[in-house]
């Protein structure tokens, strides 16, 4: 394993462990049965991070021609910077909805490969939703992102553009 891959692996681990601890602390602060609150806070955290991350990722990229271009950029370069892999599948209805499908979402990979931990998994997607909303809003596309676990560790992010 080359030194750079080891470094990359270490910083990915660092982010994952940090994220795990953030979720755990928020859950502790909010108390039991306050899942919605925890998810909201995670989303707002992700939003801010997404805004800055998209600046950093797209600094050498020319302006986006249209909305679809921006979303494709999110699926490729942006997702790679954040999670070291692409979005595997993108569907759109060419109006205002995009569905991003990730076959092996990084934060869910070590959790389960079947049906265990399905409810807890939802909380771990909120940060990524926030990342997408933040990133897209900073390139001028206001939207709402909802995430759903299909079959662990695969999940989908539904982006609905708000006009």
């Amino acid at each position, binding site marked *: 394993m080359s030194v750079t891959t080891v470094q990359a692996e270490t910083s990915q681990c660092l982010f*994952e462990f940090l994220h*795990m601890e953030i979720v755990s602390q928020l859950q502790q602060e909010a108390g039991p049965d306050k899942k919605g609150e925890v998810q909201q806070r995670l989303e707002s955290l992700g939003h801010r991070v997404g805004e800055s991350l998209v600046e950093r990722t797209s600094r050498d990229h020319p302006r986006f021609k249209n909305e679809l271009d921006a979303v494709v950029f999110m699926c490729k370069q942006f997702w790679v910077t954040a999670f070291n892999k692409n979005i595997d599948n993108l569907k759109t209805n060419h109006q205002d909805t995009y569905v991003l499908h990730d076959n092996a979402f990084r934060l869910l990979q*070590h*959790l*389960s*490969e*079947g049906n*265990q931990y399905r409810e807890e998994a939802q909380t771990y997607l909120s940060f990524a939703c926030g990342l997408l909303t933040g990133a897209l809003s900073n390139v001028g596309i206001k939207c709402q992102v909802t995430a759903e676990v299909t079959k662990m560790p695969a999940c989908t992010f539904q982006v609905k553009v708000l006009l």
Partner: protein
Amino acid sequence: MTIYNLYIFDRNCSCLYYKEWTRQKEAGIPREEEFKLMYGMIFSLKSLISRLSIISAKEGLVGYTASNYKLHYFETPTGFKFVMNTDTSVGNVQDVLRHIYARIFVEYVVRNPVARPGEHVDSELFAAKLDDYIQDLSFK
């Protein structure tokens, strides 16, 4: 190569995980008691070895052989103890235990967001991966 069972302990004497594949004889005491007894035995053996050795040991206890089974021991720097019982035909399995720790335990328990340190391991993914690895070994 027959693997009888595997125990995983943390440094606070709790048994985080136990799995048996073939077991011909039960201990005759409840499971919880058996875990404590196993931990105590390992702890005493380690202490015995460190006091008896005339050269400062790096690894300490590696394992022991009885007439019908062999116990293998592996301890991580963070205090996790892996104890595996196999039949006597097996040689050195330090690398097997190291693999179980580094590639299975760390990946699916330490990196599991829901698993808290010190708690019993409930992850089915971990159990499945461990099972696959052990079945692979038994057929070699």
